[in-house]
């Protein structure tokens, strides 16, 4: 009993520690004061939410962030899934090699990866092509390097858990290898592919180091250098003048995270209760 109370107190204490900063921004998104402080409360207003639609730079950064996250997630998911399936059915030596190279970016410091990619791009741009190649494509490659190992590592265990005779059965029943892949293997590993996809989006949305190193002119920031939310906030933080409307954006992001968590929870518990119902049916 003591343990239960103690444990729950501890859990909530740490929860407060983790959420306090964001909650502060959320609270101060309902007042229009320039800076946040104990005696800066200017009265309740939705003004910042209205202002948000006029903050063009901020909205452009948001747009860029979303475009890059989706592109990088799609590319990483396709590439990583193909890699995982291919490696799984390759010879042992090949599989081991691919497995261990995949671990490099996961363990490596992000800044080392970022610098190494930039050196490659600068080298190729200056010495081989003859002009700067930093831009959307290099940024996309950067985010893919960041995300693709995680797709690979989430698909791989699903392949290992899969019933290996399913594929053989499909072939015996007249599927071509390509059909067997699409109709048997892919559906079997789908949960892994999905989690890889969402993980890629998370990593891309959150990234700042690789973005800052590998970006160039392009997307909505054209002709300027691509600004994502991370790089934009970082550059305005340096001038210490974050537009107050950004607080409204943080609150909206926070709200969508909460909704996301709620939806995932409901879907999961629905699935679980369906499973229980089905099992009960079998036994009854």
């Amino acid at each position, binding site marked *: 009993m003591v343990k*239960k109370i103690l444990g729950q107190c501890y859990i909530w204490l740490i929860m407060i520690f983790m959420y306090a900063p964001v909650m502060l921004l959320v609270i101060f998104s309902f007042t229009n004061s320039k800076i946040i402080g104990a005696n800066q409360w200017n009265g309740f207003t939705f003004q910042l939410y209205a202002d948000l639609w006029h903050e063009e730079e901020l909205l452009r950064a948001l747009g860029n962030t979303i475009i890059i996250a989706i592109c990088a997630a799609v590319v990483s998911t396709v590439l990583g899934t193909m890699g995982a399936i291919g490696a799984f059915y390759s010879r042992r030596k090949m599989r081991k090699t691919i497995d261990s190279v995949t671990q490099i970016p996961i363990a490596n410091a992000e800044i080392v990866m970022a610098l190494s990619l930039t050196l490659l791009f*600068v080298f190729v741009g200056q010495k081989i092509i003859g002009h700067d190649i930093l831009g959307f494509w290099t940024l996309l490659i950067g985010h893919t390097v960041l995300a693709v190992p995680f797709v690979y590592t989430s698909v791989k265990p699903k392949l290992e858990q899969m019933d290996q005779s399913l594929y053989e059965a499909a072939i015996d029943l007249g599927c071509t290898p390509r059909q067997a892949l699409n109709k048997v293997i892919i559906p079997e590993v789908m949960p892994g592919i999905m989690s890889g996809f969402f993980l890629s989006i998370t990593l891309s*949305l959150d990234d700042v180091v690789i973005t800052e190193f590998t970006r160039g002119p392009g997307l909505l920031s054209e002709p300027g250098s691509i600004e994502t939310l991370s790089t934009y906030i970082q550059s305005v933080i340096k001038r210490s003048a974050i537009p107050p409307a950004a607080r409204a954006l*943080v609150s909206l992001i926070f709200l969508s995270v909460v909704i996301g968590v709620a939806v995932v929870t409901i879907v999961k518990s629905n699935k679980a209760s369906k499973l229980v119902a089905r099992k009960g049916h079998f036994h009854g």
Partner: protein
Amino acid sequence: MKENKSKLRGLFTFKRKDLCIPYAVFLVLFIIIPILIIVAYAFMDADGHFSFDALVSFFATPNKTNVLITSVFIAIQTTLLCLLIGYPLAYFLADKKVNKNAVLVTLFIAPMWINFVMRTWATRDLLYMLGIDGGTHPYLATSIGMVQNYLPFVILPLYTTMLKLDKSQIEAAADLGANPVQVFFKNIVPQSIPGIAAAATMTFMPTMSSYVISDVLSEYKITLFGNYIHLDFSSSLWNDGAFMAVIMLILVGLTMLISSRFEKKTEVRGGQLW
């Protein structure tokens, strides 16, 4: 002729293992080659000739070696603090008697979905309100920010390990007369070593290499290794930056080596977020 045709067809028939070709090419082009380039740049001067300039400049500049020592220190401190806070938390979260709610675990991971720089900005404003601003307490502010940011990275692998703890072993220890403290230190902790190792590797390197947290929270008063590489990058001092990156690569290799000694075959790192 016929033979030729079937050979040709053989070349184009679909094989499952061929699917990994694009992935393998990608790994070579964008992971292996860039690392080789970094090593090459580290031992070149600005004109592209072989030289130890970057190495000499690194070890001859006390400032740079100091930054390395500070970074390692802060990284160790953050890792230990995160483990110290995260371990009991993961333990309680995984204990059915304390927490029946899986949503709570998701809530501890959820801050990761809010943009990292925005989170750091929020932390700065809160600390500023509490009087711990970068101007007066740069070290304290940076430390708090680091722990706050990397805690989810520790909770996740620890939680997955805690779920897999062998309950019968723990009960057996208690039955054989171990008191709760002994059970904890002699059974639960040793059982969760793989999770601790994974958690430590997931915090140690990122803390060393991140420059955003220390930039924002210490108002540029604390320079970490990542800040230095970033600085060299902004001023196009490729070779010096590359040499420091090589030092980091060595550290990465070391941490991988150490953690692989502790990690069992169980997959605790990555891939288990969902």
